[in-house]
């Protein structure tokens, strides 16, 4: 059995294909792009939505009550 398995070492393995590096870097760039888009969607976009939502809610509140947010917070 040992002799037989030793034949495994005799099986030739060629060089990596010449386009290996190019394909790897294309894949890496795709992966980094996806990662950055996910970071943007989970980090910056929710922050921006919350920021603008607060302004939109302020406009809605002013329309309904006639008072600015800071006016409502003033002590009587």
């Amino acid at each position, binding site marked *: *059995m*040992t002799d*037989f398995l030793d*034949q495994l*070492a005799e*099986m030739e*393995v060629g060089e*990596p294909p010449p386009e290996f590096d190019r*394909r790897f870097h294309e894949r890496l760039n795709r*992966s980094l792009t996806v990662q950055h888009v996910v970071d943007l969607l989970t980090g910056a976009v929710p922050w921006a939505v919350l920021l603008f939502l607060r302004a939109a809610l302020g406009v809605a509140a002013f329309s309904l009550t006639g008072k600015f947010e800071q006016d409502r917070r003033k002590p009587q």
Partner: protein
Amino acid sequence: MDLAQWTDEQLAAAAARESSDGPAFVGLVDRFRQRVWRICFRLLGHEEDAGDAAQEVFLRLFLHRGRFAGRSSYATWVYSVALRTCLEMRRGRSRRRRHESVSAEPGWESRQPARPAAPPALALDLTAMLETLDEEDRALLILKYAEGYDYEELAAIAELSVSACKMRISRAREKLQSRYPESAPQNPQDPQK
């Protein structure tokens, strides 16, 4: 700064500090490209799959470049990632091709590596024999006999103890011997060789 003089671990530490694939990571790819490719090709037996697997290995190394803790050598860590990636790919491939015959695929033979003719007494299809084994046992046999890793290296790569590694290889050899008695050696040797 001559990166060629740096150890693998120094390069890995520098790569972990890089924000993108900078010179240190590119240096690591250059250093391990051939060895990772060989492992992937040996384990997957197909040039296209081996290319995919090797790219996936380097991608994982890049994405997890900050996780190398130095508990083993960097080379061992790389080979361990390569082994896991290939095993995952083989499992995925076998699920996809469960009802297909690989040998019936057109052009399959022509994509296989050039193989020297086996001696008549051992004229069995070695690849087919290994296919009958459990995926991990097959990988261990290939890494030991084709790539020449010793038991300590294999144990570190496969994340097993040395004794478990020896046991698995010994059992895999016994399985092959019982399934293919014609492949048994004329003069039995120490199975722990």
